[in-house]
């Protein structure tokens, strides 16, 4: 504070209150400065700054927590999307399996049924063919009988003599075959 006193001496009597009045009021000014500054410092250091700091830190914490929560939720969403996709893929595979199995089954059944039906048809066809053959044979025998009769009658009318039945029969058979 020596320099202040020196300055006060320099400016003495020049109508310059900051230096002129330092002797009268310097101590009072410093006293009230220390008092008011001390009160303000006390209030700031013990009440206001802790409050402001707390609020700033709380906000930072809240932001960090929210960001972390959002990240967790987003990764959970990603996981469930993946799970969902896996489920869809599984369901699709199962559906494909089921369809393939059903198709195979249906094919097998169709094949079996068509085989059965074919067999039945073949059997009927066979019986029908045998019946046809039988009928034809029967018809053929009746044809040869009619032809023998006719041949015998024609031969008798032409020759006047009744031909031997065995000769007629072999002649007719030879003609039918030929």
């Amino acid at each position, binding site marked *: 504070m020596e320099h202040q006193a020196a300055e006060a001496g320099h400016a003495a009597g020049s109508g310059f209150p900051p230096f002129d009045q330092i002797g009268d009021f310097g101590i009072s000014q410093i006293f009230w400065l220390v008092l008011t500054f001390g009160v303000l*410092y006390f209030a700031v250091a013990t009440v206001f700054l802790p409050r402001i700091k707390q609020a700033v830190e709380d906000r930072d914490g809240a932001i960090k927590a929210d960001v972390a929560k959002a990240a967790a939720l987003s990764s959970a969403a990603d996981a469930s999307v993946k799970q969902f996709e896996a489920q869809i893929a599984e369901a699709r595979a199962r559906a494909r399996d089921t369809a393939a199995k059903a198709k195979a089954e249906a094919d097998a059944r169709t094949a079996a049924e068509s085989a059965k039906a074919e067999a039945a048809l073949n059997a009927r066809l066979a019986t029908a063919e045998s019946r046809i053959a039988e009928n034809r044979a029967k018809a053929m025998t009746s044809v040869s009988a009619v032809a023998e009769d006719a041949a015998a009658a024609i031969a008798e009318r032409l020759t006047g003599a009744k031909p031997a039945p065995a000769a007629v029969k072999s002649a007719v058979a030879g003609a039918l075959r030929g």
Partner: protein
Amino acid sequence: MIATDPMHQFKIEKLLDLKIGGLDLSFTNSAFWMVVGILVLILFLAAATSKMKTVPTRVQSLAEIWYQFIAGIVKDVNHAPGKPFIPLVFTLFSFIFVANIVGMMPYWFTTTSHIAVTGFMAIFTIGLVVLVGIIKKGFGFLKIFVPSGVPLVLLLIVTPIEIISFLSRPISLGMRLFANMLGGHVALKVFAGFIPSLAVALGGVGMLMGGLLVMPLIVGVTALEFLVAFLQAYVFAMLTCVYLNDALGEAH
């Protein structure tokens, strides 16, 4: 009656007599405006911080910006060891800033325009730097006067310069604030005094000239003074941090 003497505004007047132990501790207009200043600050901070919310209100946001501004300076300059000094730097800045702004109001006293106030603040700040330095580093604190890596011959010159520069710090720190506030207010008063002078000397023409030429100048200087009011508080707080770094930081 309007006082035209530009020095009159700095005159300290006794409001209440107070003598303790032979010391004159009278309550003056200077003391009154200091009390007003800290009351304004305390009321503002109380209003701003009464209900702290995660989503801040406007005043709370202002208080937070204010705090982060000061904490930012301290963190930039002093880093982690500066943390305990944030309240002090905050108080210094706020006290000076509000005193300067209060002083900008017409007829309100500027407490920071007196060297007794600013000088004591500067001496207190430097004293604190020395005290913290000695507590933290003991005699090692004296190393700030002996820059490392300087040849011995140069040290004989550099060390006295360092000591002188250190000793001149409280003077420059206190004088800067005092002179800025005093000078600004004197300039305002002198310019404002031109108008009645012109009016007296030139009558109506003088009044017109005063209004057209001088008044814009006064408005400009007033705006500049508001800037200076902030800037000087900022400079004081900043320099306090820089000086504290000698006590807290690594030897340079």
